[in-house]
């Protein structure tokens, strides 16, 4: 653990100095504020407060943005060291490869946590200042921050996986972009196509919700939407989400996190610097 902390400390220095921490936080703040201001219109007609509408918009934003930020932080973690030529020396030290990877994970997770907490926190503060917030919407905001961090951590491990599999940073960046496209865009399009073809049949009724929650990005969405009635009101995909037991989405995300880290560790283990 001490060794992981040593790696994490250096990674935090790097994230701070290459402005990643600042950039990620700024991106989150800007998007969250924009959505809070832009989303303040429909509150009256739906009967929920401003923050609840904003959290619904930010959930959709987070599905796209969080995996992207996480992959951009993590794709270079191993491939960058290989390309720079610094991995060989690092691996001659008596730290396990899992310890090194976990150290990087802790630092990257801390950076994501800061970006999410500050970004979504700003949105909450603005909504409270402009219109006041209810307890339920505050709770929804907290859940959004926590699940965003969990979603980010899943994609951090997937970033390490592609980073260990590719021999150069460029290849790792390309693979990360592909991964993002698959999980966030193509998977949903595929499911949508299947549902349209099936036109409300057996697949749509029983299998579709499970297919949906198997994708970590959708699991994140399901978790947030089914979490509170206000959120359900403000988004459209309630039907499918309600067909699932409450543990489905958390289980999906946690399994992805554990499996992702195990896969990344195993491919890093096989790497010859």
């Amino acid at each position: 653990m001490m060794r992981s902390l040593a790696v994490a400390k250096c990674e935090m220095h790097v994230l701070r100095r290459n402005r990643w921490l600042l950039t990620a936080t700024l991106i989150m703040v800007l998007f969250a504020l924009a959505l809070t201001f832009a989303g303040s219109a429909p509150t009256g007609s739906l009967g929920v407060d401003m923050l609840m509408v904003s959290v619904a918009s930010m959930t959709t934003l987070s599905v796209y943005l969080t995996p992207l930020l996480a992959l951009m932080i993590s794709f270079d973690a191993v491939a960058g060291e290989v390309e720079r030529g610094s991995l060989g020396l690092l691996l001659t030290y008596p730290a396990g490869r899992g310890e090194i990877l976990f150290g990087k994970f802790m630092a990257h997770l801390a950076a994501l946590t800061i970006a999410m907490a500050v970004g979504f926190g700003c949105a909450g503060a603005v909504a409270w200042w402009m219109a006041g917030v209810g307890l339920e919407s505050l709770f929804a905001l907290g859940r959004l921050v926590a699940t965003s961090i969990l979603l980010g951590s899943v994609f951090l491990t997937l970033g390490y996986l592609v980073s260990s599999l590719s021999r150069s940073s460029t290849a790792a960046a390309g693979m990360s972009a592909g991964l993002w496209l698959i999980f966030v865009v193509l998977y949903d399009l595929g499911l949508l196509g299947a549902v349209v073809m099936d036109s409300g049949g057996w697949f749509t009724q029983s299998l579709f919700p499970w297919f949906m929650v198997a994708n970590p990005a959708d699991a994140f969405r399901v978790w947030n939407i089914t979490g509170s009635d206000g959120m359900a009101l403000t988004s459209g995909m309630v039907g499918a989400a309600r067909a699932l037991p409450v543990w489905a989405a958390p289980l999906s995300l946690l399994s992805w996190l554990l499996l992702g880290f195990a896969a990344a560790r195993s491919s890093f283990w096989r790497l010859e610097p």
Partner: protein
Amino acid sequence: MDKINARNDSDPVLLIKSLNKFRGSAQVLRDVDLKLFAGQRIALLGHNGAGKSTLIKTVLGLISADADKISICGSKPGSRQARSLTAFLPEAISFHPALTGYEQLGMFSRLANVKADLTGLLERVGLGDAMHRRIGTYSKGMRQRLGLAQVLLGRPKLALLDEPTSGLDPISRQELYTIIDELAAQGTAVLIASHALTEVEARTDRIAIMRKGYLVADDTLAALTANAGLPTRVRIRARGDVAAIAVQTGGRRINGASVEIEIQTADKMTLLREIAAMGEAVADLDITPPRLEDLYRYYAKERLQ
């Protein structure tokens, strides 16, 4: 100057027994045997692609090999125990450019679980003024010095240095060898892979030469010289009749005033007595024993088993 018994320990720090390594179908290490004892400094020579770096990486456990062929103080290469006993200075060393030298060394010391005087170490290698600057601003020589500082962390039993003087100016090279001598004096077995023959000639106890994956030589400089039977060159500058001296000594004239004679080391004193007897006819004398360069050429080219 063999320091083999400096540790009073007959077990070698590094023991390699008939090590073979394949890369695909190509064999890059062939039946390599090597022993390295505490306090000993060995130079590992060989052309590019001879297998030096592969051998070093195998000892470090960075590339896999039959685990029972290599032992570092009894531990398997790549094991936590072996890694905590071994220090490594890679060729073309590289660090993250955003970290400072002090931070980087601090991380290494925590990874090695060693409490070290980081400032003192960085001053020792000449980075006292630059330790809090980012490594991105360092020259190649400064990165090499930082690499050396991490070798000095925690008194390693075995130090593997791959081209340690590349990128260093002549003064820094001298300082580096002084530090290597100190390492050896405290009982570290040091292996230096190098192309800088004249440097390692004077500063190591043993020379090992690799060629196409074979270890073709492994002995002291004196023993290698004796085995190779390479001639010592004696050059005489004549004051008077050059031709007469050439006939008398059996040498050959190489210009108007000099004669060069190639003799075996054993015959050197006999020849010197003859020359001394020539008195005033000899103006000057140069003796050139075979250099490591000659030995290297001999072993690396001729003696493939």
